[in-house]
């Protein structure tokens, strides 16, 4: 800092100046920051244009939906299909910006307690009924009444009213400042439902099986429902009266193939246009080099991290946590668990949320020698079978609890080996998700837990995931300074002030070493050449997963390389760094210990088993002899 010359200050001044200017210009309509919301005054921006029309887009899809109510229960499979059937007030694009959907414009008051949305006027439901503010009001009241999945996200307890100022203007009023509202209302569980169908006293609730919309969903999206065979496929057809124009394609089909390898094989044999069931990363190079197939990657806001059980005395000493942190080689984990396509996570927050990301909140680098030193200093010496023990001689056995899945298994297996190289014994316990949640979150029955999670769309996630008040804070992380920072940031309307608070919180988070991030995951887009205007190419226009703009043509132009825009690091097409693993790995991963993880031993058990076996075999032989004599 001190060595910066005056020249170095110029960019800073320019940035400050432009920010000030921007703030002045935008002061008419201050917008609470989600992540760069884009304002549109003209509702017809984003209209669909079709250089070629017709055809069917087939998506090889990974999961079956649970029901056709997108707001009542968490349904990841439906979340991928919903943007084509339903609409929200605002949506998220592939850079997690808040973009217009049913609302073409919006305003926020200065302390972020009132949010006003201006709705489009030419919108009709798939059954022809006109869309008005009534639908919005009913939907959000239903979310509150029936405890929809967006209930907590939208802080329904603090929602005072959802009022229709007129047929096309809706205002949300909160009794407390809620700057994260815009991002959350663009996220999940906020799809607008048809009031004229659902609002009927003969229905028990919004999941009543006799509601026709639960068999034949009605939405305002670009496609309307045509057919559904459970576990097999979903067929949608273009809706002529979509408010941005009729989609270019005629049919949108989701073929459900949950098994990743089967899905991949189906795609490779020529079926399907998009492979949404992401194959294992080890297969990506092959897909990439298949003629006629395009593979794009983009960073996401999903991250794998581990947490130490702070209720266990052994973790309460920061040096122990530090030693473990320094034994983690993220490059190796990335290579072996994700074929090198993921991004090693070395900072407290994700670079993908660039505005809120503090690049200085870093974790200690890989240094196994230092780690061994620390462990020795702590008094955990290496015992006779290569594992470190407590001073009293019992082996330190760290239970690493993970949930099922190829990636978590991969990460855990590599992590186990890396920790064994510094002498720490790790036992992996793998559960399916339900049991994992009970053991880890409810019962705190673990030593280290591996978890993944979506950390967007708003940094308020720091509070929701890692504060002392968070249910999913399974590590029992409790730092009063961190807590107060993230709690305060949740109520501050000015994004720059918020930013500073989060920056400080991130530094504390990284310093405390209770949660250690491992990998930031990429998204893969695998599809056939010839398809254009895919949603991941239309940053700022297309909601995630919406194929309204897609068209097929054999235009020679390469589909845009502008897949990663704005402030995201890394990114873009094809294979990153390593494809040939060979030599590179062996050089970085020399184990100086002779025993990495020792093979299954248990000498005593073996002896007992051997003795029993001998007795049994002898008895059998004895018996056979007697019988043979008869």
């Amino acid at each position, binding site marked *: 800092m001190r060595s910066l010359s005056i020249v170095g200050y110029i960019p800073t001044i320019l940035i400050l100046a432009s920010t000030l200017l921007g703030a002045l210009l935008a002061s008419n309509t201050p917008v609470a920051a989600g992540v760069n919301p884009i304002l549109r005054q003209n509702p017809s921006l984003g209209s669909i244009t079709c250089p070629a029309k017709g055809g069917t887009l*087939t998506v*090889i899809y990974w999961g079956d939906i*649970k*029901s056709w*109510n997108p707001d009542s*229960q*968490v349904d*990841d499979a439906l979340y991928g299909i919903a943007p084509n059937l339903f609409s929200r007030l605002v949506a998220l694009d592939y850079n997690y910006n808040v973009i217009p959907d049913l609302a073409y414009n919006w305003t926020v008051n200065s302390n972020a307690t009132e949010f006003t949305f201006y709705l489009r006027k030419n919108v009709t439901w798939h059954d022809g009924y006109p869309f008005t503010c009534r639908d919005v009001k009913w939907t959000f009241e239903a979310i509150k009444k029936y*405890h929809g*999945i967006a*209930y*907590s996200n939208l802080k329904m307890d603090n929602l005072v009213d959802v009022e229709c100022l007129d047929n096309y203007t809706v205002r949300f009023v909160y009794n407390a400042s809620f700057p994260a509202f815009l991002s959350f209302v663009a996220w*999940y569980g906020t799809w607008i439902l048809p009031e004229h169908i659902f609002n009927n006293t003969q229905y028990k609730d919004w*999941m009543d*099986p006799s509601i026709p919309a*639960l068999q034949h969903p009605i939405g305002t999206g670009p496609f309307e429902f*045509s*057919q559904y065979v*459970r*576990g*097999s*496929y979903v*067929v949608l057809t273009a809706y002529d009266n979509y408010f941005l124009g009729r989609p270019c394609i005629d049919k949108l*089909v989701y*073929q*459900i*193939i*949950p*098994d990743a390898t*089967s*899905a991949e*094989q*189906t795609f*490779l*044999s020529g*079926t*399907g246009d998009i492979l949404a069931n992401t194959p294992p990363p080890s297969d990506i190079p092959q897909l990439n080099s298949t003629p006629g197939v395009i593979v794009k990657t983009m960073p996401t806001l999903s991250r794998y991290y581990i947490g130490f059980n702070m209720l266990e005395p052994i973790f309460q000493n920061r040096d122990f946590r530090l030693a473990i942190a320094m034994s983690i080689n993220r490059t190796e984990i990335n290579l072996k668990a994700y074929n090198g396509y993921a991004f090693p996570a070395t900072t407290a927050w994700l670079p993908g949320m660039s505005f809120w990301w503090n690049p200085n909140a870093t974790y200690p680098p890989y240094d196994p020698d230092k780690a061994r030193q620390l462990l020795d200093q702590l008094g955990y010496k290496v015992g006779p079978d290569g594992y470190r023990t407590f001073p009293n001689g019992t082996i330190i056995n760290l239970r690493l609890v993970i949930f099922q899945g190829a990636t978590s298994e991969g990460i855990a297996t590599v992590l186990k080996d890396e920790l064994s190289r510094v002498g720490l014994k790790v036992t992996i316990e793998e559960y*399916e*998700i*339900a*049991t994992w*949640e*009970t*053991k880890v*979150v*409810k019962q705190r029955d673990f030593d280290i837990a591996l978890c993944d*999670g*979506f*950390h967007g769309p708003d940094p308020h*996630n720091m509070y*929701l*995931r890692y504060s002392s008040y*968070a*249910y*999913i804070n399974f590590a029992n992380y409790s730092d009063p300074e961190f807590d107060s920072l993230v709690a305060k940031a949740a109520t501050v309307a000015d994004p720059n002030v918020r930013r500073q608070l989060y920056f400080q919180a991130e530094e504390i988070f990284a310093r405390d070493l209770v949660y250690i991030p491992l990998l930031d995951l990429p998204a893969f887009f695998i599809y056939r050449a010839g398809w254009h205007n895919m949603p991941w190419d239309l940053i700022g226009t297309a909601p995630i997963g919406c194929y309204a703009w897609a068209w097929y043509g054999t235009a020679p132009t390469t589909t845009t390389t502008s897949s990663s825009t704005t402030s995201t690091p890394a990114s873009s097409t094809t294979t990153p760094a390593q494809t040939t693993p060979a030599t590179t790995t062996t050089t970085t991963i020399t184990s100086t210990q002779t025993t990495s993880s020792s093979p299954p031993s248990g000498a005593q058990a073996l002896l007992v088993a051997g003795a029993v076996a001998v007795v049994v075999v002898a008895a059998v032989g004895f018996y056979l002899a007697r019988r043979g004599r008869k």
Partner: protein
Amino acid sequence: MRRYVTDRVVSSFFVLISVLSINFIIINLAPGNPATIMGAETGLISQDYIQYLTQKWGLDKPVYERLAVYLWNVFHGDLGISYRYAEPVSQLIFERIPLTLAITVPSIVIGFLVGTLLATLACRKPGGGLDVGLTTLAMGSYSAPIFWVAILLINAFSVRLKLLPPTGLVSPQLIGSNGFDYYLDMAKHAILPIVTLTLGTFPPYYRLTKSVILEQLSEDYVVTLKAMGLPRFRVLYKHVLRNALLPGITLFGIQMGFAFAGAALVENVFAWPGIGRLMLDAIMARDYNLLMGIFLFVTLAVVVANIVVDLVYGYLDPRIRRG
């Protein structure tokens, strides 16, 4: 005969109730319940959402009370509503059951035919080359893990030879259509699953039929027939086989149980949307009602199959009929 049947039915009934109760209790003792699963599937578990669901579904009541309610409902034909799909369980099961039957029943039937046929072939010269070869094939087939065989078959026929479609129910191009093409395509997709299952069902038939035939061959009446000058071929197929087929029928009941287990694994590999997959999903989601419904159904199917087998066997075997 009638008393025998009623006896069996009555005792089966009580056993069924025990089976249901045991399963119900095991499932409910498992960590996690549908509410926590639903809650866990967001990235951020919210306590009040879980609480809300728990109360809505009555999951906070004691196990015994829920078991009683469940059994009561079952006797009225109400299998409940699936937590996950919000559809009646019976509807879900009946939607999927035909698909599972579409691969298990043909595999049992073909297994029966193939096993019996191969056994007769092998018995023409007991101990000879064909016998040893076929026995090894049968034993090997029976010993191989069914999912591994499935993977190999997909690799061979679908990826390398490109003869058959790999997985799924139908090709996506034919989605939504309903004609002959559609069913033909579905049949094509069913070939590999059926072949895989058949590799597991034919060996028991082979073994059983072979041992019965060999036993029969040393019986008096065969010796007599041969002495009378009948060609061996005729002796085998006309007389011996008829007696040999009978024990094969008893296997059918056992095969039903195996078929469902195999179907679960095979459906997983081939992404065949039958009852096996539904079961696996239901376990993961702790969808109590659906799980119990499937258990009930499969148990019932096996029980009924066994009773039917007993009856048919009793009818066909004159010794028992008069007995």
